[in-house]
């Protein structure tokens, strides 16, 4: 048992660092994912995650594999996609899901193109799937800092975030200036996706955000509990994924996301709230 669960982390520094990085990402990202789902913005999260790719790639073209340049580029591009997709659905007749899909595809193509201009296929894989097993110390500090800022902001704004997700029009009436909460939330989402990009890569970052939160929704009926369960599922997926990757020699980032994918599928089938199983027990037409 020790050999399977503890030894990899005890014996190898790179595994310990990977664990810290992945747990930091899980802590910060899972609560964001819970609110993305409550606000029906899962696709926005996906579009932002992909939007980070060309931004980080521009940073890479200008400064090589520099943490600062890629982080800054990713933040700017992610925020542009977050605000741009909302603006498109406000100013045109096209619904948001279509504009989000468009942004996602353009970002992905542009990002891959930009990285390929200078980098090797190895660099490209690093962008798409992250480098959780080779995180430098400054990257670890960045991920931990983002998780800390994110959790503190969440604790401070929790009731505002819930109210803004439930009934934004009401909140605007009773609390002047509360419109800013939405933008703070988007900024946190971008920050955490940039953190996720460093550890898991642009294709997988949104997975650790959305899948645990989607799974948690099937287990509990209060927002606070969903956030906690989502964090637990995300953290367990990271640990399990890292261990599986280590023992079976699998790529770590997709393995971690697949673990949360399994958690999602199990929750979907046997969860306590509105899962396939609970709905089968109810007579037709009764909302769970």
């Amino acid at each position, binding site marked *: 048992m020790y050999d399977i669960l503890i030894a990899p982390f005890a014996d190898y520094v790179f595994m310990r660092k990977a664990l810290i990085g992945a747990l930091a990402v899980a802590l910060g990202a899972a609560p964001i994912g819970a609110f993305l789902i409550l606000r029906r913005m899962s696709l926005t999260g996906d579009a932002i995650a992909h939007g980070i790719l060309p931004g980080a790639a521009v940073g890479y073209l200008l400064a090589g594999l520099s943490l600062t340049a890629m982080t800054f580029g990713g933040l700017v591009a992610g925020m542009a996609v977050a605000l741009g997709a909302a603006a498109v659905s406000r100013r045109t007749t096209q619904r948001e899901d279509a504009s989000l899909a468009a942004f996602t595809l353009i970002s992905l193509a542009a990002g891959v193109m930009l990285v390929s201009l200078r980098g090797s296929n190895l660099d490209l894989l690093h962008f798409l799937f992250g480098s959780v097993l080779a995180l430098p110390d400054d990257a670890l500090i960045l991920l931990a800092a983002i998780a800390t800022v994110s959790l503190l902001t969440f604790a401070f704004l929790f009731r505002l975030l819930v109210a803004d997700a*439930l009934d934004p*029009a009401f909140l605007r009436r*009773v*609390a002047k200036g509360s419109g800013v909460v939405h933008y703070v939330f988007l900024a946190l989402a971008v920050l955490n996706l940039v953190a996720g990009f460093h550890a898991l890569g642009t294709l997988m970052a949104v997975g650790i955000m959305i899948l645990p939160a989607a799974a948690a929704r099937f287990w509990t*009926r209060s927002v606070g509990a969903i956030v906690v369960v989502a964090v637990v599922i995300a953290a367990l997926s990271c640990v399990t994924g890292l261990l599986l990757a280590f023992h079976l020699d699998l790529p770590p980032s997709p393995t971690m996301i697949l673990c949360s994918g399994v958690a999602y599928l199990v929750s979907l089938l046997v969860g306590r*709230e509105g899962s396939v199983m609970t709905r089968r027990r109810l007579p037709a037409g009764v909302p769970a």
Partner: protein
Amino acid sequence: MTDAPRIMIRNLALGYGSRPVVEQLDWDVAPGSLTAIIGSNGSGKSTLLRAMAGELRPLAGTMDGLDGSVTSYLPQDSGIDRAFPISVADLAAMGLWRKVGGFVQIGRHWSGEIERALGLVGLAGAARRPIAALSGGQFQRALFARLILEDADLILLDEPFAAVDRDTTADLVGLVRQWAAEGRTVIVALHDLDQVRQHFPQTLRLAGGRATYGSTAQILSVLGPAPVPKVPPGAFRSGTVA
């Protein structure tokens, strides 16, 4: 007990883009009055309520008396996701926002107030239930509990009984009358004229962009002479006048 405002509306024009829906509206609303707004679909009932709630900027004209008072507004469709994981008590407790703010927990000393509000709307035993478990009528009751906790001077309701059963309507109408009896100003957009006749002393009728206002008996008994429809330029050329 409340500071119900005297609202003075002068020469008000409302609309979306530059197309006015309501034009040249002059209307004085007495403090503590209970008024129904009637008119066909598209006559501007919702538009007027939205403007009074501060969600729509007037194209022209003034609305005085709204600034100093606490206004609550229940739109026809609240847009709330009915599957949202929140309890009935927590939804109702949002009504305390102006008093408690968003940065602290709602203290235990409020729980009596919240229970009282839920009791008044007939949801006494449902505080802990998720809103997803409520019927349409029960959900509307929960929103009324939130209105009670808002403790507003001016209460604006847009078709609040449109999608609820008869018992719920009777209970909620009772609350509306109670609010007016407490000295709050209540304005309700409605389409059921029997309801208006039975419960609402004052009526504002919107038709063709123009308004008539008076006692309900007066407005409903006449229901006309219908306000003269605005004749667009060029309408006479064809030789037919509607």
